[in-house]
């Protein structure tokens, strides 16, 4: 299932803001699920520069917050980034305004998982005999509903 080319996430170069992102229901939903006020982010970039998985993502963790602050949840639902997050909390402990980015990534995943979406098909997993159980358990907990 591998070696995919990392393509730029944004296909359209113009995004029209239709209403105040603070009033957008899906942004509010993400805020509620994650318990984080995403509008605090001032785009310093520390999360991205410390993220161990950032070089494999299609949009930086800090950019995810900019999409949210503009009310654009749709683009994020097509992003690979939340599924590349390893929940290592390096971003969380370094964020100057104390945001738990891992929780926000989980919220974005949950928006799809709660609709019964399977990011990973457990039957297609290889190496079942050598993978440590915690790898399988954690993977399925993050990537299946």
């Amino acid at each position, binding site marked *: 299932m591998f070696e995919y080319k990392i393509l730029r996430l944004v296909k359209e170069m113009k995004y029209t803001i239709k209403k105040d992102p603070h009033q957008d229901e899906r942004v509010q939903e993400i805020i509620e699920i994650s318990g984080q006020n995403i509008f605090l982010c001032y785009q310093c970039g520390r999360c991205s520069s410390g993220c161990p998985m950032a070089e494999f993502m299609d949009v930086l963790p800090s950019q995810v917050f900019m999409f949210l602050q503009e009310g654009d949840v749709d683009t994020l639902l097509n992003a690979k980034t939340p599924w590349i997050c390893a929940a290592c909390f390096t971003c969380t402990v370094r964020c100057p305004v104390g945001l738990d980015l891992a929780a926000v990534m989980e919220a974005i995943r949950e928006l799809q998982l709660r609709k019964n979406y399977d990011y990973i098909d457990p039957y297609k997993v290889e190496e079942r005999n050598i993978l440590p159980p915690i*790898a399988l358990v954690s993977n399925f*907990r993050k990537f299946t509903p």
Partner: protein
Amino acid sequence: MSLKKIMFYPGCTLKGVAKNLEDSTLATARELGYEFVELPDWTCCGAVYGLAQDSVKFTIANVRNLIKAQKYSEEIGDNRLVAVCSMCYNNLRRAHLDVMKNRDKLHTLNIFMDEEPDYRGEINVQHYLQFLKGYGFDRIAEKVKKPLKGLKVAPYYGCLLLRPEEVAIDDREDPHILEDLLEILGAEVVDYPLKNECCGSYHTVDKREFVAERTYKLVSIAREVDADVISTSCPLCFFNLDRRQEIAAVRHKGFKKMPILYFTQLMALAFGLNGNEVLHLEQHYVSPKEVLAPWL
């Protein structure tokens, strides 16, 4: 001499792929005068902590484990619950702190699990390193029979021992608890700058090339700073750092493999417990037999 009983939470992985971690932990604890008794009826901790704030379902399993520990602690007479797998430690400790801070969550869970007694927050979840520090590193020095002199070890913490802030066992950017222990064991600890960086975690299931890139980076830098082995605590880190070296070697010509060891195995070696029933060296992909020859 009778051994003091301490509640031990093994976690699912220790029973199979990480027998080397379990047996070396139990053996070293025994050497220090403790019998680590498995928590009766324990269930899987869940490996990762559920981060969604609007749902308590991910915390159930861990609180149930804590309730069982609470019951058992009355029998054993000690409220410490020791885990050596970093993920188990992180989950249990986070669950405990979460329900202690959010009492309404605790209330909901207690009501949901009404067939069990209420969790009163009495369990002290500890990682084995914290337990050893409580025992006293200088007392551990007395048990060292074969100091690991000349073995250059890169201490590797991974993520979950140090993050998030509330569960950290030491300073999260510059910890030294593992280094202190390794020095007591006589090893030469190298200054490993990536000691608190993530190994790639669960992506090893479906994106192993990404994990192999992380492995490449972590092992190469360890080689840059002149380490012989990397010492870790978490079975997932162990698997990623050890097994994924196979893919790393394919993707990067000239990559030199390095053996990975659990810190408990190093402890066992230093204590002179070098039998294979303790170390299970066959479970390692990159064999440490050559590097560890002087102590085997």
